[in-house]
């Protein structure tokens, strides 16, 4: 294959990775930014979206589009509810102590993963895409559905940005992020904001999983890679910065796509990790983060 089409394919693959990564990492970044805790179970909330999407889309008869769209709405809601329960039962009782939360969410990671194995099983199961249009380029074919993931992810990111910057809920979240004690003094129910943000973070991850599941099947171990990559993105982008998360996700996704097409996937991972190290050394608050007060 010639250089041009080769690069195009690499960029397309990279953009799909970026789109999914941006949503997943945004969830992690919100939790990180507002609650100042590390949610190690984030990848498992991502994973939960996929088996749920499978269950919902198989339960609903008729055209695959109906099942898929239902899954796109219902699965994140269920995952959000589970996250809410986990927040009430675990994180709140630890008083959001950062160290204890890490240990507790590691525990949650294993519990969720093993529950998925027990109730969903070890198989990788496919979910039919809502449409299966194959875009025929002169050099190779490409899945139309994959392109729609990029669009859907973009829309969701814009929506999240609008909510954060233009609504009262967003204002409350930003106030809590900026200074939770003062926010509480002004009558903001910080506890409820925390619960909401934790659920929202899990829902964003679940949406990402529902979007990706028609191209990579639902499997109970699928939460591990996204977790790692999300951490990388959040560290590079800066804690709690929406802009930083998106820029870092595109950066990591595109470099992963292009480097792994032209060289090797292992090199792509090496470079991403190296980038994290460089950011930590020269700009510890991340590309767009602000230094802690």
């Amino acid at each position, binding site marked *: *294959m010639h250089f041009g*089409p*080769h690069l195009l*394919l*690499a960029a397309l*693959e990279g953009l799909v*990775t970026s789109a999914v990564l941006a949503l997943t990492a945004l969830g992690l970044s919100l939790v990180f930014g507002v609650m*100042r805790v590390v949610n190690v179970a984030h990848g498992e909330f991502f994973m939960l979206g996929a088996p749920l999407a499978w269950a919902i889309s198989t339960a609903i008869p008729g055209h*695959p589009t109906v099942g898929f769209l239902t899954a796109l709405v219902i699965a994140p809601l269920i995952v959000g509810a589970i996250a809410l329960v986990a927040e009430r039962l675990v994180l709140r*009782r*630890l*008083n*959001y*102590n*950062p160290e*204890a939360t890490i240990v507790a969410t590691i525990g949650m990671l294993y519990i969720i993963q093993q529950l998925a*194995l027990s109730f969903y*099983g*070890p*198989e*990788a199961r*496919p979910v*039919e*895409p809502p449409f*299966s249009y*194959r875009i*025929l380029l002169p050099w*190779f*074919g*490409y*899945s139309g559905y994959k392109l729609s993931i990029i669009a859907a992810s973009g829309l969701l990111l814009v929506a999240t940005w609008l909510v954060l910057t233009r609504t009262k809920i967003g204002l409350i979240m930003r106030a809590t992020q900026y*200074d*939770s*004690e003062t926010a*509480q003094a002004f009558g903001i129910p*910080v506890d409820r904001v925390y619960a909401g943000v934790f659920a929202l973070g899990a829902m964003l991850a679940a949406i990402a999983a529902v979007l990706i599941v028609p*191209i*990579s*099947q639902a*499997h109970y*171990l*699928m939460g591990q*890679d996204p977790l790692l990559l999300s951490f990388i993105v959040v560290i590079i982008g800066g804690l709690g910065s929406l802009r930083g998360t998106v820029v870092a996700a595109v950066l990591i996704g595109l470099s992963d*796509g292009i480097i*792994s*097409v032209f060289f090797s*996937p*292992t090199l792509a991972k090496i470079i991403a990790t190296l980038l994290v190290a460089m950011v930590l050394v020269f700009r510890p608050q991340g590309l767009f983060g602000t230094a802690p007060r």
Partner: protein
Amino acid sequence: MPRYRQSKLKNRGTAVTDKNGFFDLSRSTLSRRTALKGLAAGAGLTLAPGFVRYSQAQSSAPIKIGFQSHRTGIGAAYGRWYEKTSAAAVKAINDAGGINGRPIELVIEDDGTDPARGAEVVGKFATQHKTDIVFGTLFSHVVMGSAPAAGENKIPYFVVSEGHHVASTKLNRYVFQPGITDVKSQIQSMAPWIAANAGKKVTQIFPDFAFGYDHRDYLPPALKTQGAEVIAQIAIPPTESSFTKYFPQIPAETEVIYHVMVGPAVLTFVKELGEFYGSNRPQLFGFIDSLEATDINSPGLEFLDGSHFWEGSPRYAQADDSAAQKAYRAAVGIDDNGASVGDAKDVSTAAHMFGCWETLYVVKKAMEDAGYKGPEDRAKLVEATEALTEFAEGPEHPQGPKTFNGKIHQCFGIQNISKVEGGKLKVVHKTKIEDGLYEAEGDYTTQAL
């Protein structure tokens, strides 16, 4: 922000948490009386009649077979079907009187499809469960990781792994593969068919670990003798979940794509290959490993129509199936489409799992030949297994006849090449045992026991 707000739990009178809310075990009260009760109960258990019975009457005690299973990890679908098949074989053997009049008991441990865990499990079987033998698993990296533990514990380790590592004689004298042909032999026996029917310029796509390397190393020479050649080799990490980025490496002049992929992402692999090429594709020859436990009629797989697969044992019932094959399928509980009876979506790993059934019958034969009584006879069992030479087709070996080379601990059988036709796999070519024989690379029997 309230990182260390006052803990509500602190003042609830629970003595086991310290001021940071963490557990403080020094304050828990385990009284001497409780401890003594526990001790007494433990002593009572070991003296209970049930524990004594077997040591007094060893001849009727079950033969314990430690089953190292991929219950979790990327091999979990194989693990589940390996368990089903083994349970069916054990039931059949026990119903017919067991081994030397003793029933078999399977002790199952999860290896997590992980080599380090696999080695631990073998050690656990040898020292904790005290099983008679270890019976094993599919993924070659787990087998290679576990083999040294079997050698150290001097416990026979029967695997159903398909890889060439046993026959390479690089493992040790305690490892056997008597139920499934190794990859080197499979490739050698099928290469003439590939060169004659699929094409001469072959690109290989394989997983980047031991099993894939067998394909990488043995296909090129096997094709060369048939006047065909491998023009590109693409290794893919076993945990990869997206594959389109690898496809530009496939040279345009490729006539055949030879694919063998494993793990949960196999369906994605085949689907993305379909999106990339559409109907204008090179010939495809794959190992069914790329689609084990996956419905061949899944959405996105239509483009596989007309392509060819290796199958150890055919997934779909064939017109010329033997009575033994039919009985085996019924015993394991798979229907004519190779799916679980009663759940058409639960597709089996038919191409490999027959090896579990056959291996257990080989164990039975070897134990009976050795007059096996208990772990003290393990060396005799190794020698008796090495003395086996052939297994006739029949209820004990439903996949077909096999020969066994005791020097390299490996069996050799027939292979099936199947074509995807109308949403089913139809066997179009069966190789002969002689096609897959090769010069032994070593001799395990010279190693000390």
